[in-house]
């Protein structure tokens, strides 16, 4: 049933007893053309685009837990594309383009809200790095502009631009098309749309082995719901990628860290945009529901615990209260953790692997949500055509052998 105000009204008269399941929950078939491991936003988007754009509908998405329950449902939903390197710009801007009408395409209101993402600069070095981004982005046709502290405050009135604080705001880079979206709706929207096209989403189904043929090519997977055959497998398992790829004997350039986030109690609208400060580690926006949504940093050690240390949270709230001193009396409602898979160059891997038929989409680190539609779109292309889409062609595994890194972190590193 198509979602619309009319269908909502119609169902109101039947006490909403007429709504069908948003997605089917079938038992797995013996074999599929493609298996996607991981029903997060990226995996579901991949399945959707396989079906919608490549006509491959005999697809299973297998998920250890519940769909959208990993980083998709745990992140602070920041969407932007103002990355430094051309490879990243192209990939993330592709995603940003797809966000524009994603609600209409999926017939599911994902609440993409381009409220503007403002990234603060606190030191001369920050200013240099931010301006480098602004200039690079402009050349690449990506909207990103430099604001003075006063302009930054005009855009985000709660911001403290006093010169007397420890790290005064010296300016900001603003991407107006950046913003937020409703994370659950993204997962559910893709799940519903993919399911409608014939994709089987199989939850509570953990992969326990990857089966290979005599030629080394994949032939399927073993799961807690039995074996499932497929000649192509796309692993989109975020923090668990190393575990799944290990089943195929591959060691990955990844480490998985706890990443924490938190929300405040709901407040009347007080915060109009997204503000990020990489220097003092503060990431904040306000959800439609009214919560302040705040991202923290990662813990320092590899962990799959989905919890982190109090000092990480504390450090983040130090920064929030310094930049927005009126929020000191606001209260934390809930804190949680995810598991982020981080590559050495802080850029993702979207590629074929040395194992025939095995594809991997991982390494999104702390910022994968923004790329969800683009990631799924190009990964589906890669799986369907057995070759990468031009936009993900640089994001190979081989770059770590050759040294052709796409180092988004290095450019921001502080030295002098």
């Amino acid at each position, binding site marked *: 049933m198509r979602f619309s105000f009319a269908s909502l009204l119609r169902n109101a008269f039947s006490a909403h007893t007429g709504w069908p399941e948003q997605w089917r929950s079938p038992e797995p078939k013996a074999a599929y053309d493609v298996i996607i491991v991981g029903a997060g936003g990226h995996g579901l988007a991949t399945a959707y685009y396989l079906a919608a754009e490549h006509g491959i509908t005999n697809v299973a998405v297998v998920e250890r837990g519940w769909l959208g329950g990993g980083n998709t449902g745990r992140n602070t939903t920041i969407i932007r594309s103002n990355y430094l390197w051309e490879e990243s710009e192209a990939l993330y801007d592709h995603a940003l383009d797809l966000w524009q009408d994603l609600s209409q395409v999926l017939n599911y209101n994902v609440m993409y809200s381009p409220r503007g993402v403002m990234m603060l600069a606190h030191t001369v070095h920050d200013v240099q790095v931010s301006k480098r981004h602004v200039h690079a982005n402009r050349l690449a046709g990506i909207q990103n502009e430099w604001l003075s502290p006063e302009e930054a405050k005009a855009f985000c009135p709660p911001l403290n631009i006093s010169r007397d604080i420890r790290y005064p705001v010296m300016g900001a880079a603003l991407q107006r098309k950046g913003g937020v979206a409703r994370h659950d709706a993204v997962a559910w929207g893709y799940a519903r749309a993919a399911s409608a096209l014939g994709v089987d989403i199989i939850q509570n189904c953990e992969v326990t082995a990857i089966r290979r043929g005599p030629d080394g090519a994949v032939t399927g997977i073993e799961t807690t719901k039995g074996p499932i055959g497929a000649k192509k497998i796309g692993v989109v398992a975020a923090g*668990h990628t190393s575990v799944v790829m290990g089943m195929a004997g591959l060691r990955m*350039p*990844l480490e*998985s860290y706890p990443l924490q986030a938190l929300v405040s109690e709901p407040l009347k609208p007080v915060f109009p945009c997204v503000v990020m400060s990489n220097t003092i580690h503060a990431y904040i926006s306000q959800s439609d529901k009214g919560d302040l949504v705040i991202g923290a940093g990662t813990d*320092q050690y590899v962990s799959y615990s989905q919890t982190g240390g109090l000092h990480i949270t504390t450090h983040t709230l130090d920064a929030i209260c310094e930049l927005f001193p009126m929020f000191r009396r606001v209260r934390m409602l809930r804190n949680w953790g995810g598991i982020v*898979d981080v590559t050495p160059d802080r850029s993702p891997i979207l590629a074929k692997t040395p194992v025939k038929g095995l594809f991997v989409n991982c390494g999104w680190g702390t910022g994968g949500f923004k790329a969800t539609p683009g990631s799924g779109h190009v990964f589906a292309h890669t799986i369907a055509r057995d070759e990468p889409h031009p936009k993900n062609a640089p994001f190979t595994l081989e770059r770590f052998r050759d040294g052709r890194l796409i180092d988004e972190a290095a450019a921001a590193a502080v030295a002098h």
Partner: protein
Amino acid sequence: MLLITCPICGPRPEIEFRNMGEAHIARPTPEGTSDDDMAAFLYLRSNPKGLIAERWRHVHGCARFFNAVRHTVTDKFVTVYEVGAPKPDLAALAADLAADLAAREAGR
């Protein structure tokens, strides 16, 4: 905040330490090392869900490096040992943990 036992200083809070990544990754000599070997040294990590042998440095204490085995799901330390000591048998340690858990389940 974890409680970490430095082999020299004893138990101390995590903020005194820096995690220095996976242990027992040998640095190759330049001679005869392929690009693949180099990538393995620089970038490939086991990143296990389970026991990890990792390096820590008690940076705000004795400043020494040491190794530890920790479970990455519970974040519990199993053992700490000196740099240069052989890598513990992680499979055997995991089996011990599992047996211990089973005993506690049965005993409850």
